[in-house]
């Protein structure tokens, strides 16, 4: 088992939910903690701490969605230690960053003794805490296309307390070019067994642009892609309802001010 920031792994060890025979600490592996922009691609090292990413000027310039989303990730002391790559590999459907990389169309660069391969974000998240990583593979870095002048983004979530996992959340990105909305991607948090792209909603929004679909149309589109979980406090229906409200807000923002908030 790999130990990066440890903010999810160590609680499980402390509670004796997990007793790995071997724990490999990668924190001192050099070169995994770098953020750089090159040729229209923003590369974030897997070991970059959440606070490092949140405060990075490169990130706020080229992927401001992350800057916004990271303010919702847990609390400062957790963000000081937790890593960008660790959060993706943990693949918690309720976490912010997996949805963000889906919305941004990221590529995840994976290394192993056999070599390296690149996995598109939409192929990375498999299911409940499951990813495409094979035995012996380590996530090394994440590549994001930089947000150009035409790029739009939105992040919001409904949580009962600051830093909590969201009841539902939305990371969304799109480009508006020549009066058309191109490739809008709406990635939802806490709305399935993994972060989910709402493809039907994306199509609907692109087709209608510059008009916006009505709320019941949004709900109908979301029903095709989302399957929110239910727990003792919050029903699937409530999450769906909140997801719909967030989607409507995102679409409104994309239309009104181009979502460049």
């Amino acid at each position, binding site marked *: 088992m790999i130990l990066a920031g440890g903010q999810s792994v160590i609680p499980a060890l402390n509670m004796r939910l997990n007793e790995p025979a071997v724990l490999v600490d990668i924190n001192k592996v050099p070169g995994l903690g770098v953020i750089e922009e090159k040729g229209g691609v923003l590369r974030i090292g897997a070991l970059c701490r959440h606070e490092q990413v949140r405060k990075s000027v490169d990130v706020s310039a080229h992927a401001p969605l992350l800057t916004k989303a990271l303010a919702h990730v847990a609390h400062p002391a957790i963000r000081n230690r937790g890593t960008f790559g660790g959060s993706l590999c943990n693949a918690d459907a309720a976490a912010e960053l997996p949805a963000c990389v889906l919305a941004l169309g990221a590529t995840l660069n994976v290394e192993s003794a056999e070599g390296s391969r690149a996995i598109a974000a939409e192929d990375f998240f498999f299911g409940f805490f499951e990813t495409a990583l094979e035995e012996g593979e380590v996530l090394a870095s994440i590549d994001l296309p930089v947000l150009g002048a035409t790029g739009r983004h939105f992040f919001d979530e409904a949580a*009962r307390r600051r830093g909590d996992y969201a009841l539902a959340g939305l990371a969304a990105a799109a480009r508006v070019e020549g009066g058309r909305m191109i490739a809008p991607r709406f990635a939802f948090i806490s709305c399935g067994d993994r972060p989910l792209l709402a493809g039907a909603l994306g199509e609907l929004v692109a087709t209608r642009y510059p008009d916006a679909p009505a709320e019941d149309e949004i709900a109908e589109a979301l029903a095709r892609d989302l399957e929110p979980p239910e727990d003792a406090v919050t*029903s699937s229906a*409530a999450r*769906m309802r909140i997801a719909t409200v967030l989607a409507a807000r995102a679409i409104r923002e994309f239309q009104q001010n181009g979502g460049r908030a």
Partner: protein
Amino acid sequence: MTEAARFSPLDRPNSYVGRSVSRPNAAGLVRGRGRFVDDLTLPRMLHVAFVRSPHAHARITAIDTAEAAKMPGVVRVATIDDIRDYCSPWVGVLDHLKGIKSAPQPPLADGKVFSQGQPVVAIVAASRAQAEDAAELVDVSYEPLEPVTDPVAALEPDATVIHPELGDNLCFQRGIDAGEVDRAFAEAAHVVETTMRFNRHTGVTLEPRSILCDFDPSERALTLYMSVQCPHMSKNLFAKHLGLDENRVRVVCGDVGGSFGIKIHTYPDEMTAAALSVMLERPVKFVADRLESFVTDIHARDHDVSARMALDAEGRVSAIEMDDLTGIGSYSVYPRTSGIEANQVLNLTGGPYAHKNYRARARVVFQNKNDMCQYRGVGHPIAVAVGEHLMDKAARMTGLDAAEIRRRNFIPEDAYPYTAPSGAIYERQSHHACLEKLLEACDYKGLRRDQSAQRESGVYRGIGLASLVEITNPSPAFYGVGGARIASQDGCTLRLDPTGGVTLATGVTEQGQGTETIVAQVAATVIGIDVNDIRVITGDTDAVPYGGGTWASRGAGIGGEAAFQAGKALRWNILGVAATILQERAEALDIRDGCIVNAKDGMERMPLSELGRIVYFRGDTLPKDLAPELVVTRHYTQNQYPFCFTNAAHACHLEVDPATGLIRLLNYWVVEDCGTVINPKLVAEQTRGGVVQGLGAALFEECLYSGEGQLMNGSLAEYLLPMAGEMPDIFVDHVTTPTATSELGAKGVGEAGTAGAPAAVMNALNDALQPFGVEMTDMPFTPEKVLRALGRIGGGGED
């Protein structure tokens, strides 16, 4: 001038009463120099971990400890058969709660388990980690029995009886029928009714329950370093059930990391730890981890209430009727019982209002869940929420404003002392003054204007009021008359030291609320010395006078008065000695700033350090028959009323987002009357902390159980507590009505915040929801429930 008037704390020169003195013990805590139980390490100390029941109700068919016993570091693996001879079971009943019953509770499960988390096997090892390693290898076989979790079902005639020897699952019931309730409802101009649900929640002290037991076989003496509220009570209970001479049991309570009623009960794991120390003749430490805390620290509330209120045409309450059903887990908790909360709900509902006709019933029911018992506020949050919700409903029905209907119904100012139909006696209260001051503080009219304006733009804000009474300064009528050895009296010992400083030992305890500062302020004022020259000792049963400790908001009122009386006595003794030395009449002298002075002109005659020097080292210079006594002890029992009731008025301002169901707290105000305010900052901070616990209950906190009796959210990630980000600033102000039961005039303030906040939040929420025509009475108020109430998502389980 009478003695009482001369020593009135309010007009002494250099009085500390009414001043926000900083807490001396805080200085160490901020530097990491606290002394909590887990900070202590004793030579040859062992650690205990427990194998706990995963079942809510089951028969134990076999326990195999062989593998565990072989693990590294393990010293002993114990089941009930090993512990039985070292610790007897206990039964949580009180004589004055007529008919209350419970089963004998063993330290480790004896044949059956009755709730998830009940300790079954104890493992003692050199480290906690090793004990836990071994615990994983203990194999307990269970035959699951039907879990009884729903209190209504538990009372059905064919229900499984949890403790068959008790005959049924009803622990306790009580009824009140005062006046002519049926007639009042028949003749009412308006009747409002409701059903309400009060969530089960818990205390979540940040420092978990902790105990370090050190048995010395040479004297058969047991020292218990405990995080606890009532050291003398614990001393008695551990001695009794471990079969030790009570005089040889010492409880030492250092810093306590929060208690709130959690650390006042008898817990099987703590009893077992002590029994193991006796058995092994070595120190044994038990510190609950967070997961154990959630399943075993007492839980609170868990009430279902139906209630109605009758009013006349002018909106005056003529009658209240209520029925309360509460589930308390599988045992009535020892020694305070789990009947007290429901008893208080009955005693307190409708407390501030002058109605004559009252009928109420409480039923307290066993279930296969963790035990429920007294937690901060005990019954008050329920009683206040029921009364105040009915009052708001009545306001809406009659068209009166929420403040106005309360004004019309408060007990008239000239009616005190007043006996409520529940039997509660109020010495004097200030409901009108508190409410008016509150309305001014929160700019009630301004809030109402803002509310209307905001609604125009689709923003839904609500204002909720709650008036309340709170039980403080209890007399022996609370527990003593019921046969429990829980002291309602408390003592204070003062010793003038040769330096002129004073050592103060008191039976009330410090849990962070500032007791040590309060008693020092009172004693310093009455004696006439600098508060920094008083050193306070609490928590050590070998060193302090016998007392009750921390419960029922009694530290300032009872402990403060004992310090007051002791201070008076010491001062008089000092002046007697000074009079002899100075050849002066004692009445002509005073003590100010640590100096003997002339009472008349304040001229300095002799510092106390000089008096101390003479008394302690040069007794040869004093007259042979003087016998100076510079150590005094005084005790105080509040005996005039069963309790000294305080009162308060709360206001909550919040905003609901109907799209997401999220509730945002905007502001909160409290005006309270705890009598003489000894330390305004500490009173305000007790109030704020209490309010936030009530806000947690209303909005976040709930112990969620499955139908099978499994706690589903027993971690801090899933059990939501109020945090800094969501809490509002809380305005606190006072009205001062000193109690005449003591010279100090102080009443308690520990629980009023918790008592009022759930009601104020609920009323604010329902006020905000008025445009939608819906009401919510099922705490906590989650986004899910808000969306459901608004019809944004469908009813029932599935959408």
